[in-house]
């Protein structure tokens, strides 16, 4: 009996670890705060995929899917700063380095360390970032907050609005991923 229970436990644990988690409606928002103007954009159609077995983590973000409250901001963001017709997507391809220390069978909040390649505006950089991974009712929630220096990704600000736009942008990520059945 003990052997059967142990086998079941091992099989269940293996299935959890072999599990992939996905969302196509994750949220990324950003905030650019400068003395003269605050700019906020939000994208609620972010795709994210976690492979629990390998720890691989992928994000795909359509730049034109960012929503603003003012039409002029939306046009400037797409045409002048992000050049979203030329560079339609931002991506992250990397790993959750400490995936093995996260127990996906137990609800709770875990520290997650991610590293990989972040591509924005056609420029790819190696990044490493701390975040949180929440396990809740079989789902996982990825949460991270970080800053992006616009110059690192060759995003230039026209001279006329240079003082209006912050040189770095605060980015917040929150994605709730469902297990793929």
């Amino acid at each position: 009996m003990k052997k059967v229970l142990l086998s079941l436990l091992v099989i269940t644990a293996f299935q959890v670890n072999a599990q992939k988690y996905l969302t196509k409606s994750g949220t990324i928002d950003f905030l650019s705060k400068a003395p003269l103007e605050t700019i906020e954009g939000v994208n609620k159609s972010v795709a994210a995929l976690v492979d629990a077995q390998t720890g691989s983590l992928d994000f795909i973000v359509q730049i034109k899917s960012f929503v603003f409250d003012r039409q002029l901001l939306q046009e400037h963001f797409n045409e002048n700063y992000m050049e979203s017709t030329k560079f339609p997507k931002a991506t992250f391809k990397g790993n959750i380095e400490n995936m093995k220390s996260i127990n996906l069978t137990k609800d709770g909040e875990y520290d997650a360390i991610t590293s990989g390649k972040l591509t924005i505006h056609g420029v790819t950089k190696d990044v490493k970032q701390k975040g949180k991974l929440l396990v809740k009712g079989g789902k996982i929630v990825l949460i991270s907050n970080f800053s992006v220096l616009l110059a690192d990704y060759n995003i230039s600000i026209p001279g006329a609005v240079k003082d209006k736009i912050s040189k770095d942008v605060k980015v917040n990520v929150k994605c709730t991923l469902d297990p793929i059945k």
Partner: protein
Amino acid sequence: MNKKLAYLLGFLIIAIVGIFIVLKFVNKPVNDYSSKEVKTTFSFADIMNKVSNDTASLTELKDQLVGIEGLVKKVTNDSTSTTLEIGDTTSMSSIICQIDARYKNDFSNLKPGDAIAVKGIITGYTIDTDLGFGNTVEMNYCTQLKK
């Protein structure tokens, strides 16, 4: 009233009107497409067929207002927004519609499996070859498609 005062008054009126026009332009809210006519309406299968076999015509639909008919696969709600995933259970591929926040309440009773017709701006698509996401088409500022 002397000439100087008249000029000054005229200048002030022009300046105030100018500032008003500039502020109105700068603070104009994002476009509301709820009353606009769609270019074309597609079924979910039609759009996914374009993603697989005819990306040239799908690319032409980018930034255009189109209608989509299909089944709700998932509804993601928070206090300020609703995002719909349109698709079916046989495939990972889907259409993601960010609902225009001004019309969020029109979608409050939706649940997976419901038939839906929406219109919105196509913002892009992703062809997945290796990750397991399935193909995805994204739309913004979606509202109900009324027939």
